[in-house]
């Protein structure tokens, strides 16, 4: 192709292709340079002995860092806590999210106000939320304990060993309003006729919920479960902010979740390579779990029709 006749020689189809590639190029270039390259650079680093000072002299150590992950008792402990947290939090939050959405879907007065109230916490920035809940949970001067006193409840040390995970879950649920909205959108999408037909047949409310609402909502619940798992496994900012330095000073703490451990290795001890190995193990776990959930979905997710564009 000669430069002079370029514009004329191009067919409509290839002109559109070029336009396509030009238009996606901002994304693609930044994606390659600032996502893909760091991703694989990090993978490469996880096979070296890079510790923050020796980038020039860092050398390949093979799988050593990965072996260390599985012999690091703090990492294994943190992984256990994280899996437990996920196993407890995701079902609770899915259930609470669905029930709150069902409440918001009732034909009641002022429903818009309730919807705003439920959604409000999820737009509060994490930093503010953490500061607020830290004040709520404080042992001596915490507002929760002050509020519980007139009810005759004993004072609870909310961020202590026994209660810290529960407190974390409470805060997470408080901030989960966007999930409620997604559920609500799903509930609104269920056709009224289904419920009417069931009512005429004399089906009680509970069986209408089990036979109609749950199956019709299953794709959305499925979405929420996946997102919940992915987010919980990566959790680190909120536990750090809630427990502050206490969490980082004493590793074996209830909310010392996996990414907190990785964060600690990298930022406190400058163990970059080991931190990357820890994170790549997590990344693999997330990918595998997502795959398993996707695979299992065909047995319990009900699709009304074939998915289209």
């Amino acid at each position, binding site marked *: 192709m000669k430069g002079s006749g370029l514009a004329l020689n191009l067919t409509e*189809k290839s*002109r*559109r*292709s070029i*336009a*396509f*590639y030009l*238009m996606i190029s*901002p*994304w*693609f270039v*930044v*994606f390659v340079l*600032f*996502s893909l*390259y*760091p*991703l694989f*650079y*990090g993978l490469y680093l996880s096979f070296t002995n890079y510790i923050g000072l020796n980038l020039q002299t860092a050398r390949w150590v093979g799988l050593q860092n990965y072996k260390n992950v599985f012999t690091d008792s703090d990492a294994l402990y943190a992984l256990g806590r994280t899996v437990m947290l996920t196993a407890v939090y995701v079902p609770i939050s899915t259930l609470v999210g669905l029930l709150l959405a069902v*409440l918001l879907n*009732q*034909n*009641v007065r002022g429903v818009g106000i*309730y919807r*705003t*109230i439920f959604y*409000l*916490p999820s*737009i*509060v*920035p*994490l*930093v*503010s939320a953490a*500061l*607020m*809940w830290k*004040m*709520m949970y404080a042992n001596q*001067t915490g*507002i929760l304990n*002050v509020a519980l006193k007139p009810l005759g409840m004993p004072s609870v040390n909310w961020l202590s060993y026994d209660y810290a995970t529960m407190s974390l879950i409470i805060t997470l649920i*408080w901030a989960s309003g966007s999930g409620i909205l997604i559920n609500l*959108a*799903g509930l609104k*999408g269920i056709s009224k006729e289904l419920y009417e037909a069931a*009512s005429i047949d004399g089906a009680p409310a509970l069986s209408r919920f089990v036979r109609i609402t749950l199956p019709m909502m299953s794709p959305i619940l499925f979405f929420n479960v996946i997102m919940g798992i*992915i987010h919980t496994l*990566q959790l680190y*900012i909120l536990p750090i902010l809630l427990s502050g330095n206490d969490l980082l000073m004493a590793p074996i703490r209830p909310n010392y979740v996996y990414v907190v451990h*990785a*964060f600690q290795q990298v930022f406190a001890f400058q163990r*970059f390579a080991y931190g*990357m190995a820890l*994170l*790549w193990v*997590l*990344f693999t776990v*997330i990918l595998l779990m997502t795959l398993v959930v996707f695979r299992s979905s065909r047995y319990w997710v009900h699709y009304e029709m074939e998915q289209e564009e």
Partner: protein
Amino acid sequence: MTEAGTSRWSRALIYALLLICSLAFLFPLFATLSSSLNPRGSMPSLLPKAFNYKNYVDATTMIDFWKYLRNSFVINAISVFTSTFSSGLVGYAFSRIQAPGRKLLFMLILSTMMLPNIVIQIPTYILLQKYGLLNSFYPWLIWGIGGTPFFIFLYRQFFSTIPKELEEAARMDGCSIFRTYWNIFLPLSIPVMVTVAIMNFQEKWGDAIVPFMFLKQAKYPLATALTNIGYTVQGNSELIVQEVTAAGSFLFMLPVIVVFFFGQRYLVEGTVSAGVKG
């Protein structure tokens, strides 16, 4: 109107549940507000003991509040402006223009939504250090130009709903592909644009960790400053002044709440029209 089968009792139960849940959801916000109005060093209380606005004055003077606020605004302005436009352009390309490899590239975008940010943040730190981009706002400009996978997805869903005829008519009139986008599709997508801009603002405004990693203290935005500097007693960095912290975190979340209330209509409209369904 009462639905068939909904008794008076179950309606009472629904109202009671809604009320209890609302109170539970509002309680931390309300408690923080009370706390922010209490005199320093007093015991927390459910109702504010006085209308003590001095904590709010302290919140803006005890730390370099205005400087951090300005940093927050700069980061947000750069990020929201570039990402909103860039994501729109990419979303348009993916929804309206046929080209080889389009499906594969789109799958790539969807899968990056699953990529945990922290896996790339540490190598990114090392790379930014190499290129001398640490402690500057340039990374936010670059990320913004790259767009955001979720926003690209939203735009793409929205643009997919617009009838083909519109585009064909524009082409008949001699509009180039880019002009068709700029003059016809972009103006149509204003609800989505506003939605994306609001979400982007909320996300960037609240982000404390990325600035913490890539910036030095003088360039911290408010979010990072609040968590890493905090309102402490002079001479004792461990002793936090709760009432001032409460006031500070209220001031910090105010812009997000204001933006949310003004943009609420668009948020609902934008997500509905983009067809975020199961």
